[in-house]
C-alpha cells in the first residue's frame, strides 16, 4: 500500500503499540539545550536511571547566552547556573555538547542540520517546539516537554499518538522579494493557528521543490505556529547535496547507500492524505503580522483588518488591535519601528543574512532604529564574515553579534523596552515574547526587516531591491 513519509518513518521506529493506543516510538536523534534539560537530568538522578543511548543525544547552548560579552561566568547568575548545569550533565552522562568554546555552537535547530546530525528518515525530538524545523530534511521531528526529555534520555523512546497528514502544495513561482517566510505566514493566516492540530504538514509543489534547504527549514520551523507539531518536505537531490560532506553525515560509499535509503523514505506518488490544501505561490506578497499571534498577518499592501472582516475571530482581532495600538482599515506599511532584529532559528541562516545584506548594502539604518543581526550559529557567523557580510551590516549601522536566540525571546540580555515596535525575522509575536510585556513584534522576512531598519518604518522590500 502506498504510504506517506510520515507513515514510513513511523512504522520503522515503532517499538510497540502501548495499551493506551499510543505508539512507543524510537527516537533517532535527541537534541538538548540548557533551558529544558536540567530538570530532566535531575528526574533521572532521583530515580537512579541512566541515559540509554548517550551517543544519540547532542547538546548545545543557545537560549540564555549573551550575544555581546560571552565571557564566563556570565553577568547573569541564573544564566551561568543553567549553562553550568548543561555542561555538568553532558559530562556526567557522556553526551556530546557544542558549548560556547566550540565553533559548532549555535541555535539547536540551526546546528543540527549544519552538522549533518539531522538526516532524512530519522525521528528527531528536542525540548523545543521549533524542532519541526528538522522536517525540512524529510525527518519526523517534533518538540517535547521536559518530562518527555527525561523519557528519551532514559529509554530513547516516547509514548506518542499517531498523526494525520495534510499535504500543502505551493504552486508556481514566488515573486521577487517574496520568501519562504511569506509563504508560511500566508499558510498560517489561511489555515489558522489551530488548523494543524492533530496533523503533520507535508509541504510540496513546485515552489517548495525549488526552495533551498534554508528556505524549507523556515517553512517547517513555523509549522508549529499553525498548530502542527510536525512539518516536513520529502527528501530530494537538494537535500542530498546539502548533506554531502557535513561532519556527521555519512561519507564515501555509505553516503551513496544512504541516498538510496533516503530516497525510499519519501512519500509514494500515490499516497493518500487526510487533507490536501493548494496555495498559489505566485500570488503571495511580502507579509507582515499586525497582531499578537502568527496567524494575524497581511500582505504588506493590504489594510489592517477590522473586527467585522472575520466571521468568528472578531474578539481576537479587537484584543490584538488594542494591544498593538493599530487602527483597523489603515495600512501597516509606514508603521514606525524602533528595533529591527535579524536572526532566530526561523531566519538566522547564511542565506537569510545575505538577503538582509542585499537590502542594507550601501544604506544606513534610520537614526531612531536600534538594529541587530544575530547569526543562528557560530558557523553561520564565520561564513558570513568570510564573505564580508559583517562589514556590510556594520557600515550600515547594524550591530553584529555572537550566535544565539537573542531577541527571539527574553532569556538573555537582548530585549525590547516598553512599547517599542520591533520588525523581527523570528517566529512569535505573542504578547511579551521579546522581553517587554508591552513590546510589539511585527514578524516578517529578513529582507523586510532590513528594509524597515533602513527606512525606519514598515516598507515593501520590493521597492528597494
Amino acid at each position, binding site marked *: 500500500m502506498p504510504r506517506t513519509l510520515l507513515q514510513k518513518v513511523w512504522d520503522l521506529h515503532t*517499538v*510497540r503499540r502501548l*495499551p*493506551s*493506543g*499510543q505508539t*512507543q516510538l*524510537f527516537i*533517532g536523534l535527541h537534541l538538548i539545550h540548557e*533551558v*529544558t534539560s*536540567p*530538570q530532566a537530568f535531575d528526574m533521572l538522578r532521583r530515580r537512579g*536511571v541512566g541515559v540509554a543511548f548517550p551517543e544519540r543525544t547532542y547538546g548545545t547552548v543557545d537560549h*540564555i547566552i549573551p550575544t555581546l560579552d560571552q565571557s564566563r561566568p556570565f553577568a*547573569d547568575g541564573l*544564566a551561568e*547556573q*543553567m549553562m553550568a*548545569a548543561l555542561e555538568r550533565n553532558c559530562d556526567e552522562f557522556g553526551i556530546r555538547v557544542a558549548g560556547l568554546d566550540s565553533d559548532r555552537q549555535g541555535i539547536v535547530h540551526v546546528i543540527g542540520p549544519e552538522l549533518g546530525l539531522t538526516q532524512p*528518515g*530519522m525521528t528527531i525530538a528536542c525540548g*523545543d*517546539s521549533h524542532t519541526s524545523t528538522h522536517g525540512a530534511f524529510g525527518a519526523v521531528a517534533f518538540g*517535547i*516537554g*521536559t*518530562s*518527555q526529555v527525561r*523519557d528519551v534520555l*532514559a*529509554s*530513547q*523512546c*516516547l*509514548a*506518542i*499518538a499517531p498523526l494525520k497528514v495534510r499535504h500543502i502544495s505551493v504552486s508556481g513561482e514566488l515573486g521577487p522579494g517574496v520568501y519562504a517566510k511569506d509563504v508560511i505566514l500566508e499558510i498560517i493566516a489561511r489555515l489558522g493557528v*489551530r488548523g494543524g*492540530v492533530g496533523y503533520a504538514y507535508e509541504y510540496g509543489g513546485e515552489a517548495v521543490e525549488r526552495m533551498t534547504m534554508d528556505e524549507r527549514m523556515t517553512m517547517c520551523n513555523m509549522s508549529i505556529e499553525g*498548530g502542527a*507539531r510536525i512539518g516536513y518536505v520529502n527528501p530530494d537531490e537538494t537535500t542530498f547535496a546539502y548533506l554531502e560532506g557535513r561532519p556527521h553525515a*555519512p561519507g564515501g560509499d*555509505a*553516503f551513496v547507500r*544512504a541516498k538510496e*535509503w533516503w530516497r525510499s523514505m519519501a512519500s509514494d506518488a500515490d499516497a493518500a492524505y487526510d487533507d490536501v490544501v493548494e496555495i498559489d505561490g505566485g500570488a503571495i506578497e511580502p507579509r507582515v503580522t499586525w497582531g499578537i*499571534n502568527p496567524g494575524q498577518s497581511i500582505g504588506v499592501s493590504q489594510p489592517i483588518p477590522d473586527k467585522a472582516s472575520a466571521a468568528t475571530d472578531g474578539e*481576537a482581532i479587537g*484584543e490584538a488591535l488594542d494591544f498593538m495600538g493599530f487602527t483597523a482599515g489603515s495600512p501597516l506599511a509606514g508603521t514606525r519601528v524602533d528595533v529591527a532584529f535579524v536572526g532566530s532559528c526561523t531566519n538566522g541562516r547564511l542565506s537569510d543574512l545575505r538577503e538582509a545584506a542585499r537590502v542594507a548594502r550601501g544604506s544606513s539604518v534610520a537614526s531612531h532604529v536600534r538594529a541587530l543581526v544575530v547569526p543562528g550559529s557560530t558557523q553561520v557567523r564565520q561564513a558570513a564574515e568570510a564573505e564580508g557580510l559583517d562589514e556590510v551590516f556594520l557600515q550600515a549601522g547594524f550591530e553584529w553579534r555572537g550566535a544565539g536566540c537573542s531577541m527571539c*525571546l*527574553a*532569556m538573555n540580555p537582548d530585549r525590547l523596552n516598553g512599547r517599542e515596535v520591533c520588525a523581527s525575522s523570528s517566529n*512569535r509575536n505573542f*504578547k*511579551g*515574547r521579546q*522581553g517587554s*510585556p*508591552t513590546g510589539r513584534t511585527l514578524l516578517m522576512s529578513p529582507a523586510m526587516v532590513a528594509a524597515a531598519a533602513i527606512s525606519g518604518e514598515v516598507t515593501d522590500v520590493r521597492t528597494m531591491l
Partner: protein
Amino acid sequence: MSGVTPIDRIKGTAVPLRGDNIDTDRIIPARFLKEISFSGLGAHVFADDRRSMPGHPFANADFAGASILLVNENFGSGSSREHAPQALMRWGIGACVGQSFSEIFLANSTTIGLPCATAAAADIEALMAITEHAPTTPMALSVRTRTITAGGRTVALHFPAAVRDSLLTGQWDATGLLLSEFEDVQRIASRLPYVTGF
C-alpha cells in the same frame, strides 16, 4: 512523583480564564524559565497578564486556592515549555477544562499528571458563569466518568482515549513503561540504517 499513581477525581473550586489562544509565553513568561528546577514557578504564573490586565482571575482573591482551571479555545499554544503546566500545578491547579488545548500542552500536562478535558463551548460558558457568579461553588471532576459537576449541574467531558487511559492506570509517567521492554528498543535501533552506519 511515582509512576503508578492513578488519577481520577479532582475536587475544589474553579478559576475561569476567558480568551482563546492563551499561549505558554503568557502562562509563564520566558524570563522565569531561568531556573534549573520547577519548584518556584507557581508564584509567577501569568506574571505579565496579572499586572497588565486589571481583574485577571489569577490576581483575584476570590479564586485563590482554586484547583480546576476553566479555559476556552487552544489553551497552551506556542512554546513547548513544560514550565507552563508545571507552573499551573504548583499554583494549585489539579485539572483543566476547556474547549481545546494545544497538542504539546496536552502532552506535557498528561505527562505530569495534570488532566486536561474538553467540553462543549456552551458547557464551558455555563461553568464559567457559575464560578464567576459564586466563586466558592465546589466542583468535582472525574476522569473515570468523564464528568464535572458544579452547583447541581453535570457536564460531559472528553479526553483522548490514550490520555484518559494513562491517567486512570497511573501510566501517565511513561518512563517505567518505556523501559519495560528494553530488548525491543534495542532490536528496533539495530535495524535502523542510520544507527548501523548504512
